């Protein structure tokens, strides 16, 4: 089997994702875990490009890597005293966790083995030369979808984000009367 450059890049991004996930499962340091999650999310963004979703890849990097990870790091730093910096967490339930997750994964492997993908759309997605032909209209199609079929969901998402913005600010505010003491 000859591998061309695109396939090699595809495998590299999948490898970043998989190795990052594996390391994430066994690291004890929360700071390391946050940065490993960064690697995993970045690898997934790369995979999105190969599956013809450039707009989603950019959203992934901007929203997840730029937003959510920064918030998570904030959470880590605010919930661990910086003086005695011990951002460690122990691993509990190791054996049940291993049994459940490897069992689940082997079930998935068996299922994927059962399915014949040769007829599906996803197979021809992996014909990456074909993917290159369609580069460019992805954002346009998502925009059309947002304003036609998904208009209600789109508006609801904006309302949800507003609610969450207000709610999170309300939850983390100082109660009345404590402003003077701090």
């Amino acid at each position, binding site marked *: 089997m000859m591998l061309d450059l695109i396939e090699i890049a595809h495998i590299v991004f*999948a490898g970043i994702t998989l190795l990052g996930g594996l390391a994430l499962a066994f690291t004890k340091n929360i700071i390391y875990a946050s940065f490993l999650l960064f690697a995993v999310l970045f690898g997934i963004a790369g995979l999105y490009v190969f599956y013809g979703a450039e707009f989603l890849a950019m959203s992934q990097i901007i929203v997840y890597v730029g937003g959510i990870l920064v918030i998570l790091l904030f959470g880590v730093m605010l919930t661990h005293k910086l003086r005695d910096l011990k951002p460690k967490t122990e691993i509990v339930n190791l054996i049940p966790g291993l049994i*459940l*997750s490897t069992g689940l994964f082997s079930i998935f492997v068996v299922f994927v083995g059962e399915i014949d993908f040769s007829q599906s759309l996803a197979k021809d997605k992996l014909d990456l030369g074909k993917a290159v032909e369609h580069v460019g209209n992805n954002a346009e199609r998502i925009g059309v979808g947002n304003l036609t079929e998904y208009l209600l969901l789109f508006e609801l998402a904006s309302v949800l984000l507003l609610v969450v913005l207000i709610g999170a600010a309300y939850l983390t505010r100082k109660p009345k009367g404590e402003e003077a003491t701090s």
Partner: protein
Amino acid sequence: MNWSDWVFLVSPFLFCTGVFLVITRRNAVMALLGIELILNAANLNFVLFSNRETGIPHGQMAALFVIVIAAAEVAVALAIILNVYKRFKTVNIDDIDTLKN
């Protein structure tokens, strides 16, 4: 099973890793990382199976809304975690058992 079908196993692997993280960690922030991993595994499958040539890519739309919901969820969850830390001085999930019994 074809050898090139390995692409369909990336997202199950991430899903199982997320489940493992949620089960084996007692730190609330680490459990949150596991949930993020599970959401991303679902997203990856949506994108892998969405149509990408013409028309509205429904799978990608679903993934987009999942990203929106995930952002909202992380913001609220961290607000709750900060409040819990302020009250109990810990984020260990096992120690927060006021409602037990």
